[in-house]
């Protein structure tokens, strides 16, 4: 339980990226929301980087849904990168993948 979550926004090659670091669960809400609030005004396109994420549960999925819902209202696109095969599978069965563009690697994600 030492694996605390941190959502860190940054800009790279003109893309606003939020790195999701550690465990994405119910306790991650504040950090993720704050990162989105900081990042959102900077771009119409937000890239969520799941690469440094070690674990995600159903509460974490709910947080991603919240971000997606908010971005939709604001007319922003949400992209994702760095998903393991397992979480990509979960994004497919939950149909999250129908509402965000999922990239295979960072190079194509920021292109």
């Amino acid at each position, binding site marked *: *339980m030492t*694996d605390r979550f941190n959502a860190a926004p940054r800009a790279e090659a003109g893309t606003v990226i939020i790195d999701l670091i550690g*465990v994405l*669960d119910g*306790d991650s809400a504040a950090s993720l929301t704050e990162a989105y609030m900081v990042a959102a005004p900077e771009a119409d396109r937000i890239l969520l980087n799941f690469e440094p994420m070690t*674990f995600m*549960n*159903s*509460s974490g*999925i*709910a*947080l991603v*849904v*919240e971000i*997606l*819902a908010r971005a*939709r209202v604001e007319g922003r696109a949400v992209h994702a990168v760095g998903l393991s*095969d*397992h979480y990509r*599978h*979960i994004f497919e*069965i*939950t*149909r*999250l993948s*129908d*509402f965000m563009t999922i990239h295979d690697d960072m190079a194509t994600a920021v292109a």
Partner: protein
Amino acid sequence: MTTWTQTLRRRITRRAAADAAATQPDGEQLRGAEASTVEIEPNDPILAFLQSAPGPVELETLELDSPAVRDLREAGVALVVPLISSGELIGTLNLGPRLSEQGYSTDDRRLLDSLAAQAAPALRVAQLVREQEAEARERQKIEQELQVAQLIQQHFLPTTLPQPPGWSIEAHYRPARAVGGDFYDVVERPDGRIAFAIGDVTDKGVPAAMVMAATRSLLRSAGREDLSPGGVLAQVNDLLHGDIPSRMFVTCLYGILDPRNGELRFANAGHNLPFLQTDDGADELRATGMPLGLMPGMSYIEVEHTLVAGQLLLLHSDGVTEAHAPDREMFGTPRLHDLVAAGSDKRGGMLGKVLTELERFTGMGWEQEDDITLLSLRWEREAAASTLAERTFPSLRGIEREAMAWVAEAVVASDLEPARAENLKTAVAEAVMNAVEHGNGGDEALPVEVRVEQRADELVVAITDRGGGRTIPITETPDIEAKLRGDQTPRGWGLFLIQSLVDAVRESSDESRHTVELVLRTDGGEPR
């Protein structure tokens, strides 16, 4: 001759005077209108008279005590020309008086006679064609009804049967041509027990198929309410009563079997008794009760029995025991008893054995009298359950990750495909979260017990909390569109994930504990 007398009784068309008209035995006119009819009774002497008359008959001079003659005269008929084909009176040509007001001459009569001789066979052919068409229509109608009945029936029979580890459950259903109302059903309940039913609706065809469909659906619905077998039958009986035609009823045997320990509990609404194959023969398991749909407010006695590995339970419909040999001898219950007692080692062997014997008994070209249904539940071998690991976790926030890592370690030797192992880990994490938050209400002092077992062809992770009496709500696929619109909470993914990531989820509870079992099949069958 029968055709003529039967149909002539119905009507003979009569025409306005001076207008000749031929009638057909079915009363339809060949041409013209303004016709009324004359009924001729089959015992009217005019029929016998016309049958043997040498030619056209003048009604005016006919001395015969016949109501038909009187009626024909009143209708203005002067001359009746009998139409005879192959020695049978098949119709008459009825003529009014001549327009010249003179009587019919000898030449007229000769002409009419030869006309009748040619018209009669043609009329007979027309009659036969009509009869055949009517028969064909009737046959087609019956055939269509049979097809509808068969479709209904087939739609409501299970396409696959659950196969708990160590068990072999098999069924055979063969409809009679006329389609009786047999049915059977086998369902795995959420707690891992097997509910089964076999039944027979009185009557045949579409009505029986409709009642069969309704009964099957009611049984399934009652079965979901966690009732005992007697409770299921009592509820279905009350629902059926008043809804089905008074002359119809349904016999049905309903049971619940725990494949893990062989515990069987069943109740019977007037259906044939099941046979249990034992080490030293076969026993008829006896339970009685009123058929469904006859009277409301019935209660059904429940019978309990514990099967041991190696035993087989055989259920059947009366289409089996009441099948007849060519010499009208009946197959009978004792014969079926002996077959079960003699046993069969092969998988699916018992059904094959009964059917082969039935075919031998009834002989070649047997027109099956009633639907035949057989259902067998065989406990082939004790499902060797071995506990791979067992541990208790405290109800702490975030403990699910520790439990998940521990389970991953415990199943290493099971050699799961990496993707399936990942799926199991996530399902375990979700189930443990539920146990902590919902089952134990976040009370740190309450334990969550996790046990990993290999049972025959299944790897099972059982997660037990102290939330007794709780059941998992039926999971629907979350509606992500509604969540994104803000119409629904973004949460609510846990149960969906659990059910999507393992092959089966079973749950059971008593007053103080609630257990969820996450099942992965390890025999290569139907993985997710």
